[in-house]
């Protein structure tokens, strides 16, 4: 980091969300690979002929340069990196879901390079594959792991006894899977092992992993509602 002005050049980044700010500017929530989540002002970005207008798109890999080191940085320039088709239809709603998770669970100014790379890969999967549920489960698991809330999937809680595919377990928040507890979410051992292997082909694993992830995410969200989840649910009703 340069000693004065705190200017950073060509940092790989994504826009997670943007809000109108003042008359012609945007306030950006940025996920940068090397500096984590940052708030940034893009001055004049809402002017009709602003060069930034078509650039500051969610879900597009960018290189951003900014200065300042306070709570809100100032965007200096943005470069399009390309290679990511714009998300369409349900994949687009899934993209919003990823961003909503990150905005709610990732603290500011905390670099998570591995999570950034996984996010990039997940956007590629959303754009090119059709089983979005499996893609989302993989992302949720890796995100929790990178944020320090890793799931215990291969061993029983508090022991080194390996999970057996045919056995029944109860998964307890902040504890893990256990055979001798009453509380928690009932699951088959195979579900846990499939999740460890990022394999969601088995419909039962897909269904149980969704319930488990929902329980864990709700716990970490501590009462915050995921609007995107509601929206996707509403849409699937039709």
């Amino acid at each position, binding site marked *: 980091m340069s000693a004065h002005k705190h200017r950073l050049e060509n940092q790989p980044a994504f826009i997670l969300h943007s809000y109108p700010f003042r008359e012609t500017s945007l306030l950006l929530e940025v996920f940068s690979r090397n500096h984590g989540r940052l708030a940034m002002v893009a001055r004049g970005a809402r002017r009709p002929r602003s060069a930034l207008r*078509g*650039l500051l798109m969610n879900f597009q890999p960018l290189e951003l340069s900014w200065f300042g080191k306070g709570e809100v940085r100032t965007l200096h320039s943005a470069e*399009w990196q390309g290679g990511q088709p714009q998300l*369409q239809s349900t994949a687009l709603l899934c993209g*919003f879901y990823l961003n909503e998770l990150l905005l709610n669970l990732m603290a500011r100014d905390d670099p998570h390079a591995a999570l950034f790379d996984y996010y990039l890969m997940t956007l590629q999967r959303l754009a090119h594959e059709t089983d979005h549920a499996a893609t989302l489960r993989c992302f949720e698991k890796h995100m929790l792991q990178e944020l320090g809330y890793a799931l215990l999937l291969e061993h029983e809680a508090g022991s080194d006894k390996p999970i057996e595919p045919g056995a029944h377990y109860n998964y307890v928040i902040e504890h893990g899977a256990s055979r001798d507890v009453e509380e928690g979410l009932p699951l088959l051992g195979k579900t846990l092992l499939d999740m460890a292997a990022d394999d969601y082909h088995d419909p039962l694993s897909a269904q149980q992993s969704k319930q488990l992830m929902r329980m864990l995410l709700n716990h970490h969200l501590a009462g915050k509602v995921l*609007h995107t989840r509601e*929206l996707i649910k*509403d849409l699937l009703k*039709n």
Partner: protein
Amino acid sequence: MNTPSSLEDLIAALRCLPGVGPKSAQRMAYHLLQRDKPGALRLAHTLGHAVESIRHCAKCNNFSEEEVCVLCRSHKRDAGLLCVVEMPADLLMMEQAQCYRGMYFVLMGRLSPLDGIGARELHLERLVRRAQEQPCEVILATNFTVEGEATAHYLSTLLNAQGIKVSRIARGLPVGGELEHVDSGTLAQAVLERRVFSE
């Protein structure tokens, strides 16, 4: 210094305007009371009148003084086309472009899940009912932002489920636009959505 309470009330009330913080609200209040009292009275009167007389057109949801607005009552419009836009300003642009003679529906916003604006907040069921009134093609003219795209996707799913024909306005390079000067996002999407050139 003691600020009279009615002045305090005015400053507080002005802060309901978008982008107006305490400082600018104070400046506006001082200006109205000291430099432009007739303007202040006119503002108070027209604002009160507008709030009382303006409502949403029962058909297109645009601002209107009547139950059904002039555009929706016109017999010169093609009732077989229903164009969905986000804001009244978008409707005005469409009218200025003189490219469209159908009817409209103004959403008064867009789906924005990260801001907590979902299907319920936008009253999308009203649009579905409007589209079902008579056979028509619904043209989705929401913005080409991620939120506008999400809104278009949501609406197309909703309307297709009712057997209604839906189309989306096209995007690409601006008319008279040169590749050299266009932004990368627009160019990338234009290449992706290229059309077969046939005689």
